């Protein structure tokens, strides 16, 4: 057990060094949230108006989720690169704990997403985001966001494991961003045409965004928090089991 932990830590350290070696990626990860906030807040804020909301306040949860999806996408690529280059064979032929390779990537991805989430909140505050949440609400918000980040991480690990090449990866990861758009992120789903509305109401991004919005702004909540938690935990269990299964079957070819 302690070997599994120390091996995972060594693999995490490797991912951390590699992330820090690509300053462009790190800068982009911090700059993109600012650009997104400014873009959506000022550009669309002028034409979109949602009754009872300051538009910037309204879109913060959606932008946060979008930045998490963007940040996770990098993980797909690094998992894919390791799997397709000889380095994975080297790790396998030394007695390294079986789980260490994947958990190194998962830790890196989760921590990067948390940092980016904080940066995005920072950007939001700078352009006028004014939530009413108190300490208790912020605790629940953090919990939901961390669960969401872990769920996204397992999904992108799966994408990295199954994708044939980098193009396929960026294609699939784009779908994650589309999910955010087709939710309650930028407009209430009621404004969408029927098919899209049904989709928007029954996909995981919507309850997560609604729960975050309610907690941040103090708008009334029904059972959005529970639904968001069920989605996140469900996705984590599903993603974990599937990722481990795919990883194992790839190795015993």
């Amino acid at each position, binding site marked *: 057990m302690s070997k599994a932990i*120390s091996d995972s830590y*060594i693999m995490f350290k*490797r991912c951390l060094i590699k992330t820090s070696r690509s300053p462009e990626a790190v800068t982009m990860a911090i700059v993109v949230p600012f650009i997104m906030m400014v873009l959506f807040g000022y550009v669309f804020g002028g034409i979109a108006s949602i009754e009872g909301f300051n538009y910037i306040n309204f879109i913060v949860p959606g932008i946060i989720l979008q930045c998490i999806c963007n940040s996770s996408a990098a993980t797909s690529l690094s998992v894919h690169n390791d799997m397709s280059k*000889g*380095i994975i*064979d080297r790790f396998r*032929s030394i007695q390294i704990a079986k789980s260490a390779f994947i958990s190194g990537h998962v830790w890196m991805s989760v921590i990067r997403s948390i940092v980016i989430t904080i940066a995005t909140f920072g950007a939001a505050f700078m352009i006028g985001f004014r939530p009413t949440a108190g300490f208790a609400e912020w605790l629940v918000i953090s919990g939901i966001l961390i669960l969401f980040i872990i769920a996204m991480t397992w999904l992108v690990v799966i994408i990295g494991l199954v994708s044939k090449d980098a193009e396929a990866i960026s294609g699939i990861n784009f779908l994650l961003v589309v999910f955010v758009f087709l939710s309650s992120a930028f407009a209430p789903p009621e404004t969408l045409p029927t098919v899209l509305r049904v989709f928007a109401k029954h996909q995981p991004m919507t309850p997560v965004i609604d729960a975050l919005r309610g907690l941040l702004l103090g708008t009334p909540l029904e059972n959005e928090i529970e639904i968001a938690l069920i989605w996140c935990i469900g996705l984590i269990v599903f993603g974990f089991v599937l990722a481990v299964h795919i990883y194992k079957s790839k190795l015993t070819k």
Partner: protein
Amino acid sequence: MQKIIEVKGLKKSFKQNQVLKGVDFHVYKGKIFALLGSNGAGKTTCVRILSTLTKADGGSAAICGHDVFKEADNVRGCISLTGQYAAVDEILTGRENLYLIGELKHLPDFRKQTEKLLSLINLEDAADRRVLEYSGGMRRRLDIAMSLMGKPQVIFLDEPTTGLDPQNRIVMWDMIARLAENGTTILLTTQYLEEAEYLADHIAILHNGIITAEGSPEELKKILPIGEISLEFMNSTDADKARGLLEGYPLKAGRKIIEVSTNGSASQLTDILNRINDGGLTISRFTQNQPSLEDAFLTLIGEKGGKNE
């Protein structure tokens, strides 16, 4: 002598493609063993099975007394693999790559070993540069150094010199030879007869899914057509005359060139040159033909190729 690798009846197919049809060999402790085969012969498949990366369909294999299929973890503790394509992390520096392996193997003295290995592979100056900036030869050397971390008892080297220039190839040969002097057992694969001959204590030729021949380089030399020489004359008249003079030797005649098969001995060579000399002919060019692996296979599996007829 202790058999440290023992392989019996190893079988592996990829769908319809039967790659290994029953491979048998063994390697003694501290020796260099060369698995020789042309492209697609199944060398990499064999090495991947032995290093626990691929599952075999049948047969048995034991390394350091552990069953490769049932005790994979114990086997991993005693081997290390340098695959056909360099398995180094390009974003990390050379030193960080070595540290990574040392830490994953939980070696208490991995820093000290890293310094030693860096000097062994002559990479001290580039140790803190990213591998991205390394040449192919430097990567290959680092790759092998990563395999040496923790002083494994058995090392697999899959085509360690493919893609290296002649000078780097010699450096690599030296390095491999020195490893074996320290008691490490080495199984290497190669497409070059020359390399196997130079390095190995024992050579096994993998062809059509089985070991078609094996033995020490000396033993193999006896069955390989190594004594082929080629004589070039000024014109075709001389070449025709020479053909008459060399009656008794299997030969193949071109317009101005005659290729003669000998048993490789000095006496036969002298005899041939004497006959030509006595006939008053001048040889404008003399070359000794290196047998290709293809020739070797043809001889070994008894399919007489057109070359010596």
